[in-house]
């Protein structure tokens, strides 16, 4: 153990110091820092060696074959080809950005949400252009939204929405998905504000946003059950479940409690103390379990009412949260649909 620690210390001491980058709150601020850091980066990073003609041909074939596999729906093999292309061109050149984004889109279409988010986050962190960073952030946010992790999706969309340099179409899409992120997280007042903003803007999502706002109005009118009332009613076995609409459980509870009460009382009256004690204990369990079940059932009823309402809103208005179809945009190359840049 001590030897391992000592070895780790020596390795850490010999490792080259990596310059800590100052965190930037928005892509715009990051872009302002670019000019200052550009000269240092140019000095520190040696330029990559030029490709031989054979390497260039092989790279072109890899990219083309990756596109072919992608458009054929063979996501994972296409990822291998894009990675081969990035390896061959050393991550530089005009098509490297698109290949990197295509890997993210392939993972997204393969429903590997977490891996897609990590890939697109990686592009956003290492991007050299503001536009690419914004598009990668948008793709990563979409991946995390589909992964039901709005706590990761919201900061990415918010960065795009609040940044003045974002293109109008991308900003509108980011606002739409940010509103859904708040919706998924149960932050309905924030979601309503963003949906209302979209409805007022009269853009692509205006009609859908109006519909979601109307659905949000219905949230306050959901029928709920009072757990205390359910528990109080279930002091008469079965009545609490009748209040919850669970007629089958009500009948079962009333029958079982009636039978056990009758049997226990009969045993007590007959002086059969052992059987009477066992039956009484079991009846206490059934009775208390029924009261517990009525209270828990009221909580479940209220939760299920919200879930039903949420499912209906998603089914009616949430279709455009999904990624557009593979061939939804004529002539769009892989890696362009995910970033809304076709």
């Amino acid at each position, binding site marked *: 153990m001590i030897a391992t620690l000592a070895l780790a210390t020596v390795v850490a001491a010999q490792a080259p110091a990596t310059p800590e980058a*100052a965190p930037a709150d928005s892509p715009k601020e990051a872009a302002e820092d670019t000019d200052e850091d550009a000269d240092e980066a140019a000095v520190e*990073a040696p330029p990559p060696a030029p490709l031989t003609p054979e390497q260039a041909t092989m790279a072109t074939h890899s990219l083309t074959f990756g596109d072919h596999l992608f458009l054929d729906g063979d996501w994972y093999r296409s990822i291998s080809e894009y990675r081969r292309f990035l390896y061959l061109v050393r991550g530089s050149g005009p098509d490297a950005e698109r290949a990197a984004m295509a890997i993210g889109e392939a993972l997204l279409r393969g429903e590997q949400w977490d891996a897609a988010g990590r890939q697109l986050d*990686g592009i956003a962190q290492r991007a050299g252009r503001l536009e690419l*960073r914004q598009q990668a952030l948008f793709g990563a946010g979409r991946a995390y939204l589909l992964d039901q992790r709005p706590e990761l999706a919201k900061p990415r969309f918010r960065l795009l929405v609040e940044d003045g340099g974002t293109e109008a179409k991308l900003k509108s899409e980011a606002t739409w998905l940010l509103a859904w992120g708040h919706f998924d*997280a149960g932050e309905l007042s924030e979601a309503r504000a963003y949906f209302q903003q979209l409805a007022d803007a009269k853009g692509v999502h205006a009609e859908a946003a109006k519909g979601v706002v109307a659905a949000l109005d219905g949230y306050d009118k959901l029928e709920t059950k009072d757990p205390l009332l359910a528990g109080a009613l279930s002091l008469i076995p079965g009545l609490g479940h009748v209040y919850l609409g669970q007629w089958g459980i009500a009948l079962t509870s009333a029958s079982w409690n009636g039978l056990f009460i009758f049997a226990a009382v009969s045993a007590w009256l007959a002086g059969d103390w052992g059987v009477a004690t066992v039956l009484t204990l079991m009846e206490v369990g059934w009775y208390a379990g029924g009261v517990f*079940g009525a209270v828990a059932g009221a909580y479940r009823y209220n939760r299920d009412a919200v879930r039903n*309402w949420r499912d209906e809103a998603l089914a009616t208005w949430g279709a455009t949260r999904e990624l557009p179809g593979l061939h939804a945009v004529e002539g769009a190359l892989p890696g362009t649909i995910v970033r809304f840049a076709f």
Partner: protein
Amino acid sequence: MMRALALAALLCLAGATLAAPPAASPTTPKELREAREAEHRRAVKAFAPFDGGDRRDVVRQGAKGKKRAAHPMVGDAAKVPGEGPPPPPLRVSPDVPEAALLAPNVVGAGLSASPLFLFSLGYQHIFTKLDGPRCAHLPTCSRFGSQAVARHGALGILMTMDRLIQPNDSSAIRHLPEVEGYGMVRVFDPLEDYEFWKPERFTGFLLPAAEVSLVLPPLSPASLASLTAPPPETPRP
């Protein structure tokens, strides 16, 4: 004379039958399977002569001396040493203390001494094997009961009583999700759905999680080259 001729003809026929070549190539699925298995055994013996003696037939269930096919629910290849994949790792739940996984005989002493827990074990391993699966839920009712008592003590008994009269619905207005477990389709009804004193589980939305702040480095011109390396980990809440 005629009798002698008939006897000679019969002997010729018998000789022809005995001298006939073996049956033609297998045609039925059973013959094909047997032929494939025989070929496999020959190949194993040819290429692993020192391991041939270690092979043995495993009777996983059924009467003694009578080999039967493994039952899909009872037979478990993972339990035969040297066969099948290794067992899956322990599922770590935030409600189960880590010490209980590391030293179950010490921490779980109270649990294993509980009559209800012993009853649930006996029910799972004896009655269910004899009577077949009777619980349509997952976790099964006996597992639910032992979990409930382990976590909540006496309150777990009330939760189990409630569970025993639950239908396949979550409430009067919604079905429970269906999952596959222990060889059949069941409805998923975990213990957490009964812990109504945890309000965050009953909102109808995702479990609340704090936003993870996003830290972006400054834009750098040649940084895409590092995309050939795997991207960094994204923190999970």
